């Protein structure tokens, strides 16, 4: 599956997210900004849920490019220890079972699985056999 934008994921299998480490300060950001202020840095695949909400209505198009048929999805902030907190989808868990602090792992997700050529966006899922 092709990524929704270049420079978001590493080329390896399974992929990691690509952040940017600011040359001047060492601070890690996501995504890696264009230009030469940051060096690309692969981010940890596993982290913990920092906060979240559920998007209950279809965002306006443009800019939203998800499927016409809308089902609510989770917006998550995931803390990758010692690196950065990234915004991504959270999948594979009932809305009522989401807990801040739960361990999660990167699982790239198709923005529109029905599309002729689905595009991958960053997403995480709870790690099996673990508890928050």
């Amino acid at each position, binding site marked *: 599956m092709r990524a929704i934008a270049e420079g978001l994921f590493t080329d390896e299998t399974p992929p990691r997210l690509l952040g940017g480490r600011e040359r001047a300060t060492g601070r890690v950001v*996501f995504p890696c900004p264009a230009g030469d202020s940051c060096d690309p840095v692969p981010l940890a695949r596993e982290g913990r849920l920092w906060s979240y909400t559920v998007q209950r209505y279809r965002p*306006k198009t443009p800019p*939203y490019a998800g499927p016409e048929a809308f089902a609510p999805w989770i*917006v998550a902030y995931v803390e990758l220890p*010692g690196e950065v*907190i990234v915004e991504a989808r959270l999948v594979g868990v009932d809305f009522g079972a989401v807990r801040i602090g739960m361990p999660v792992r990167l699982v790239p997700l198709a*923005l529109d699985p029905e599309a002729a050529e689905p595009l991958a966006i960053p997403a995480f899922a709870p790690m099996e056999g673990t508890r928050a």
Partner: protein
Amino acid sequence: MSDVCIVGIGIHPFGRTDGLSGLDQGVFAVRQALADAGVDWPQIQFAYGSSDAAGNPDTMVDRLGLTGVQFINVRNGCAAGGSALFSAQMAIKSGEFELGLAVGFDKHPRGAFNALPSEYNLPDWYGEAGYMVTTQFFAAKIMRYMHMFGISNETLARVAEKAFRNATHAPHAWRRQPVPIEEILAAPLVSDPYTKYMFCSPAEGGVALVLASEKKARELGKPLVRLKAATMRTRPPHSFEVFAPSVDVVADDSMPRGTATRIASADAFRLAGIGPGDIDVAQLQDTEAGAEIMHMAENGFCADGDQERWLSEGRTEIGGALPVNTDGGCLACGEPIGASGLRQVYENVVQLRGDGGGRQVPGHKRGSGPKTAYSHVYGAPGVSAVTILER
């Protein structure tokens, strides 16, 4: 240095006014404020105008009179009105002018604000993936705050219930029908944990304030409502803001992070020479119910987590120890970005003059009505403006 005084106030009712442009609503407010101050447009020496989506404020000289007046436009997100007011008071404090105007108006389309990534220096994919939605940020911020400090959904609902109930007494408010707590909690979710009653809606409205030097205010014979502090500040490092694809990790994440609000508030109290305990009435940005909760702490009025008790004890009711959002705030008035910050100051002047009618704060702290009033706005991407008034 002599104080800057607010000598005239005007407002066009908030909500939806079909057939009237945002600028028209601003002009309506200016005329009302001039009449309230007892001055004519040609006496106005300068103006600062704020609007986010309803055109250039300075074009209103067409309607008000081509006097050649200095008129500067301000666009500063949700802090636009506060920024206009800050600039106006500086113009008087500097000694350059004695009488001027701060005006704010707006008119937004129905539905959520529709932001584009390019306007915020973000990549296109961020919008395509569905993240250019302000409500997501507000919901994620309170979700973490509730987790950290034990704030309940009921407390969020109490904030919204109070807003609509207070607004029944505010002629300029939009949503003026009380809504029971049970109905607020049972309403459809927009972005968890918020139901539809817990978010404000983009709206329309206009507000104008006439400002004068103390000397000029005395000449006009107006009651002296003094602007003791007006601050506008931007965010510190590591803050969590709207439209953030990433947030910094910090060594100790067990307390709320620094915000523009904390900086603007601390500086305003320092300038005014008083503390949070000295405030008799406060208008705190409540674009969603949890914002009022978090802003109570960020502005220094209570400790994190105490809001649960404050709300259940009614401490922020009009008759409580610190009445908050006496006109129903953004939840009941809606959010015309350019006007909201000035609406708060309008409401505070009404309260300090004792003109609040059914929503008047008794001011039992010191007897004869409130003496001090506080206003606060917060906006994207991490801006805040605070004012402290005193009579």
